[in-house]
């Protein structure tokens, strides 16, 4: 994901802003990292360039 996507993302649970932690970057894209809600503290992974912003209950039950 591009860092500018942060402007249009929010926590799926409480709609507060997210904070970005970058682990690996490739040119302009974040490949691995984490998005953390500034309000509830829930962490959402970024894997293979795709942020997984499913709410925690759906993240666990959704099959891979």
């Amino acid at each position, binding site marked *: 994901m591009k860092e500018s996507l942060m*402007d*249009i993302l929010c926590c799926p649970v409480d709609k507060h802003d997210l904070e970005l932690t970058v682990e690996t970057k490739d040119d302009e894209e974040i490949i691995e990292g984490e998005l953390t809600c500034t309000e509830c503290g829930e962490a959402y992974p970024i894997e*293979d360039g795709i942020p*997984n912003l*499913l709410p925690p209950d759906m993240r666990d039950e959704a099959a891979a």
Partner: protein
Amino acid sequence: MDNVDSDDNSDSDNDRPSLAEQRGVDGHVYQPAEDSALLAKAAIGDMTAPGRVLEVGTGSGWVAEQVASETDARVVGSDLNPHACRQARERGVEAVRADLVAPFAADGFDAVLFNPPYLPTEPDNEWDDWMEHALSGGTDGRRLIVPFLDDVGRVLTADGAVYLLVSSLTGYEIVVDLAEEAGFETAEVAQESYPFEVLSVLRLTR
């Protein structure tokens, strides 16, 4: 999509082909079909200088890719299905794994496109895999349309528009009523007839 609930289906449940087989699709991700083409064409033709566009349930990412190539908009595709997110990203679409519009910020998009899973499916005929998620609209075909309409207004700019693909199998008038109950004005911007259904694209504005 073909109507899978035809009353003359005399095959046992075990013998009847899956929706995926009927559609000639394979794998875990819904591939572009007539409905995708109609949605892309209608939205591209109707939008005026959109800045940001979201396609919900982007699947293979084909519709989002068409919008990105035909307009100057920044296009984001979301899907519940991780396989779909990967395919969309491989097409060059910015992909987000999401439940409908839940993780998108208020007033973020000038247009939101959605070709929902809409085939009415009896619970006994549901099969729990990603292709079912992509095709089945639950018993009335409107499983995801109601929660989508409840929340999509939040992520739209004041002048923004939703482009929603509706099949006659889902109940066109009922979907129009649901959209109006959710506070939208509706207009049909495209319609095409097929042997088993009529496909429409509804534009929803406030």
